[in-house]
């Protein structure tokens, strides 16, 4: 049995598969189920200060090559989320709290709450591709990214990861800004801004028109982003985008990721994809005489 344990900053995981934010993580029960399916950690849905319904349906559709969603950051608000975090933290699992805000103050407030609830790490969502005033509107401005990150880092003790979008001219630059803000790690990538028009109805299908593209199709974009970031940064990276197999996960690891997140893959391989991916990684590592996953991190950079 190969050793799949990994470390992201001070965060130790039994295996490198993590549930991505926004899927099966609205309540403690769902996150518990994912942990039971073998995930090394879970990220919560992105939580804001106030409750949001998100966009009307259709919010999720399948494409030939992946999924498109425009949830619109639905969440019950940080206050209501306290009980979910506390409940899930009763079981012995690693929980990363994802939060979104429109400025440093909001991010800090949310982060402090998450920390006080018991989250093991924070993920700052600066990359949602379809929510006005949030997400990539912040995550494409390197000054803001640095400012928010360092503001949160100044007062928060748990590790802080910054989740970035590929919808920018230069993801390296943004990642470097997060690193300068003392981020403990980078999460890349969020969904890719995209659209599907129904030609019979002659209109975009998603209520929000624009959505975020996830699943198999975006893996080559995610791997490229992780590779680019790894080329210029020293802090750990969590790779995400289109992972459905152990081989996909290994591709991200070789590009430079210390861990990976899985979202849409749940659709393609059911909810125990976390076990499956770990098994496949383990099998490949055994076949290739690799003892520890850490031996593979970033090896594709010669």
């Amino acid at each position: 049995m190969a050793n799949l344990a990994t470390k992201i900053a001070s965060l130790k995981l039994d295996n490198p598969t993590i549930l991505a934010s926004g899927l099966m993580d609205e309540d403690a029960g769902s996150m518990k189920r994912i942990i039971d399916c073998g995930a090394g950690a879970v990220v919560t849905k992105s939580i804001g200060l106030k409750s949001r319904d998100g966009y009307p349906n259709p919010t999720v559709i399948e494409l030939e090559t992946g999924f498109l969603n425009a949830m619109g950051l639905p969440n019950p608000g940080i206050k209501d989320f306290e009980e979910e975090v506390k409940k899930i933290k009763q079981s012995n699992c690693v929980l990363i709290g994802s939060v979104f805000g429109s400025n440093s103050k909001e991010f800090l407030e949310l982060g402090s709450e998450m920390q006080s609830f018991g989250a093991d790490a924070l993920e700052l969502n600066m990359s949602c591709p379809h929510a006005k005033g949030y997400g990539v509107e912040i995550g494409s401005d390197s000054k803001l990214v640095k400012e928010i990150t360092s503001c949160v880092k100044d007062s928060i003790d748990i590790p802080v990861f910054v989740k970035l979008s590929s919808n920018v001219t230069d993801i390296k630059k943004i990642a470097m800004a997060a690193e300068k803000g003392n981020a403990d790690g980078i999460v890349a990538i969020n969904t890719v801004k995209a659209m599907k028009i129904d030609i019979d109805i002659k209109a975009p299908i998603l209520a929000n028109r624009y959505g975020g593209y996830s699943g198999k199709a975006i893996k080559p974009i995610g791997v490229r982003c992780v590779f680019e970031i790894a080329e210029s940064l020293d802090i750990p990276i969590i790779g995400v985008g289109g992972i459905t197999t152990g081989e996909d996960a290994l591709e991200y690891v070789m590009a430079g990721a210390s861990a990976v997140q899985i979202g849409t893959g749940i659709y393609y391989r059911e909810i125990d994809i976390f076990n499956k991916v770990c098994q496949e990684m383990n099998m490949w590592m055994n076949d290739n005489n690799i003892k520890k996953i850490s031996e593979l991190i970033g090896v594709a950079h010669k």
Partner: protein
Amino acid sequence: MNKPTITKIIKTQMETKDIKTLKFYYPGKMSPGQFFMIWIPGVDEIPMSASYINKEDKGITFKKVGAATSALFKMNKGDKIGVRGPYGNGFNIKRGKTLFIGGGTGIATITVAVEFAANKKFSSDVIIGVKNKKELFFENRLKKFINKVYVSTDDGSKGYKGFASDLTKHLLSKNKYTSVLTCGPEIMMKQILSACKDTQFQASIERYMKCSVGLCGQCCLGNGLRVCKEGPVFDGKTLKKIPEFGVYKRDASGRKIKFK
């Protein structure tokens, strides 16, 4: 693929003042209790159980309650809707004597299940419960394929006066049923569950739905059970372990909403 297929309404049917049936072309097999996501372009996409299941076409029967159902309510033959699905597990309808209980718009879902049992020549009784006889629908349709159609109304304007759950308790004490299958208000279903001692139990649950393919987690209850995928029909054993059953659901934001 899980995106809406545009199809045309081929027939409409008024069931009550505010309950309507739409039939549309949508070929394929499905089970009673499974549901569709119905897209009304420019308005919303909402889950709807099938109330008619034919080889080439399907039907939905719904009550006008808000924007989406009102938009659907206005639709006529020839209008376009988007349909994806069927989703979920559907009822597990077995030999033996079954008591079906439909409450409110849940009657729509229960009726196809009863029809399925009748086609298989399984024996069954059915209770349909509404507040007032004006809200009653599918009574005649049900009578075509089974003998015993019990009606309950909260105000006693027709049939048994009282809740369907009370009528259920009454029938359970009188007759022997292999199983009880129900769809309706969750408080009603919870009451029925507690009345089912040895009788097998299945209930179709409603939760706010977004993806309906088991991804987003919006519809989860208990330990991550997805109503859109592992449900919408759950058995009594499962439901007894879910503390929130009959107690609260979550709205679109994920906040808890207590059942009243």
